[in-house]
């Protein structure tokens, strides 16, 4: 869309993240670059183990102890986050600048504290201007109302076990908001929830993004979910982005075979009586050096060159890039699979 005039809020440059496991080195993030624009919602999509959570955890200094950034930069607010050494430095980023919502609302809340106290704690820590018990309490009520929890006075005193899964996720969102962040990372926030609740939480996130002027980084394995919320979509495979573009680019004009495969395997597109499309094989081991296109061994229509050399980045338009040899002028013209050619005409059910 109008990305070219947009201001960059977070910039990742040639980032490499490795983990040491039992004496072996796992290369989880392989030379990744990404610009996150202020005020957008960008979705990072990939299978389990593709590295999407590792990447976003590195924005907050939350990598596991055996993980480290081997090279590259994460620029935020003029600072390179990869240079941070002390916890004190990270404390200024975590919550107040970048906040995160985790997948499972059952485990991300403290079961021994009322939800009101848990939100109040975030208000006291991150909003020193709000002083005094009453003012903090009023602020907490306001956040509870914002996330769609009715009767905040009563709910304030309740414990997490008294809430349903969807309501708990709303509480988690309220805590994140109370930190007053600029970037909100949502790591599979709806995977553990029902479809109806999922749709409500997505709507809530969109409303809150507008109200609080947030930038949202949305992580999921399900491309179907992000059509609703994402301005841009970044598809990750084996620790690298294979395609980045606006939602329109990626859904209506996908270029990378892996994006084709992800779209084709959505059950929404399945026809009864026919087999659903599946991606054969498993993602490559990141312990080994990957030669050529990482997706080639699973791609039934891979080119010879895919096994020989890693594809460079091809820019299709100002907003759309993909890393596949198919975009090289010498490559044969391949159409995307038939089932995903007309997503623009796909109707909403019901």
């Amino acid at each position, binding site marked *: 869309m109008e990305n070219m005039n947009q201001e960059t809020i977070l910039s990742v440059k040639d980032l490499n993240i490795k983990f040491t496991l039992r004496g072996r080195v796992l290369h989880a993030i392989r030379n990744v670059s990404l610009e996150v624009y202020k005020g957008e919602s960008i979705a990072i999509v990939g*299978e*389990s183990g593709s590295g999407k959570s590792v990447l976003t955890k590195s924005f907050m200094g939350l990598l596991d102890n055996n993980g480290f950034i081997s090279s590259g930069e994460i620029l935020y607010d003029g600072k390179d986050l990869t240079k941070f050494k002390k916890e004190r430095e990270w404390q200024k980023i975590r919550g107040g600048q970048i906040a995160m919502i985790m997948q499972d609302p059952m485990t991300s809340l403290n079961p021994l504290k009322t939800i009101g106290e848990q939100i109040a704690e975030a208000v006291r820590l991150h909003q020193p201007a709000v002083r005094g018990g009453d003012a903090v309490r009023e602020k907490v009520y306001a956040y509870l*109302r*914002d996330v*769609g929890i*009715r009767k905040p006075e009563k709910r304030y005193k309740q414990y997490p076990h008294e809430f*349903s*899964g969807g309501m708990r996720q709303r509480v988690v969102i309220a805590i994140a908001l109370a930190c007053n962040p600029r970037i909100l990372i949502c790591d599979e926030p709806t995977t553990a929830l*029902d*479809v*109806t*609740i*999922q*749709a*409500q939480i*997505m*709507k*809530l996130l969109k*409303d809150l993004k507008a*109200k609080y002027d947030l930038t949202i980084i949305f992580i999921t*394995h*399900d*491309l*179907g*979910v992000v*059509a*609703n919320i*994402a301005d841009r979509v970044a598809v990750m495979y084996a620790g690298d982005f294979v395609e980045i573009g606006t*939602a*329109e680019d990626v*859904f209506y004009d996908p270029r990378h075979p892996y994006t084709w*495969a*992800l*779209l084709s*395997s*959505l*059950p*929404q*597109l*399945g*026809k*009864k009586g026919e*087999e*659903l*499309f*599946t*991606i054969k094989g*498993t993602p490559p081991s990141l312990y080994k050096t990957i030669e050529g296109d990482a997706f080639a061994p699973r791609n039934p229509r891979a080119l010879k060159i895919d096994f020989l050399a890693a594809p460079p980045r091809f820019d299709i338009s100002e907003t759309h890039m993909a890393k596949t040899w198919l975009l090289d002028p010498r490559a044969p013209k391949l159409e995307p699979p038939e089932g*995903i050619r007309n*997503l*623009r005409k*796909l*109707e*909403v*059910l*019901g």
Partner: protein
Amino acid sequence: MSAEREILLDVKDLHVTFGSGKKAFEAVRGVSFQVYRGETFGIVGESGSGKTTIGRAIMRIHPTSAGEILYKGNRINGKISRQLDRQVIQEIQMIFQDPMASLNERAKVDYIVSEGLINLHKKMSDEERRRRVQQALAEVGLLPEFASRFPHEFSGGQRQRIGIARALIMEPECIIADEPISALDVSIRAQVLNLLAALQKSRGITYIFIAHDLSVMRYFSDRIAVVYKGRIVELAETEELISHAAHPYTRALLSAIPMPNPVSEREKKLTVYDPSIHDYDRNPPRWQEFRPGHFVLANDREMEEGFGEVNDFDYLSS
């Protein structure tokens, strides 16, 4: 055509109550449906709707408080003969939602898959048992050497295959699949669904498929029952239900399905079911035929006038 088909399972006015006295909670409140041999019968509803409880009542895990469940014409709820109990155990099997939680972490795959056989056929030789395990593993696309491994050595999709092998080894006629793919990655989901479909083709297994997601149901089920708060509110063949959804709850479920089309998704209005639109106090609902073969729980006024518009969704103004 459904008149000629053999009824495998007949559920009549099923009630399941948890607790007793003042604390009693009726999770299933008068559910009736029939499952034909060889079909996939879908039960869809949100968390807490009672869909899992229905499945578990059929499996005899939860005792029923009223109503009847007939399997091949024999009542299988309440007190039944040992012989019938063994038959039910062998012929109706279950696949669970979370492959991380439903496998015994301390047992090897060999034992997990054959536990049912060990209990049911005490005299089976070890050799025969092993042969059957190998066969079941092969059928779900796992290698024979996996039998000697522990569950933690497998990925989510492989674990779910182990769960399916465990059901298959009993040579069941009916499998109750309770959210078998909800905990899996999208790409793995398709593999597991294809496997279930292939097994149905080769063995003629009847499925009762329980899920909260109508998009999967639509692909997989022949007929769908929509459950809301312990009652079936709508039941029809899949395409009929999707294209002519009558009950506002069904319509809300349909509108919640995320579609991979960003432009229409952004403009989509989310509909939310608000039970207060019914005037059931004055005019109680009955189970009525809305269109041929398409049943809905509605009162007479709703049958005449339709259910009216569903409310637009609106939270921030609450």
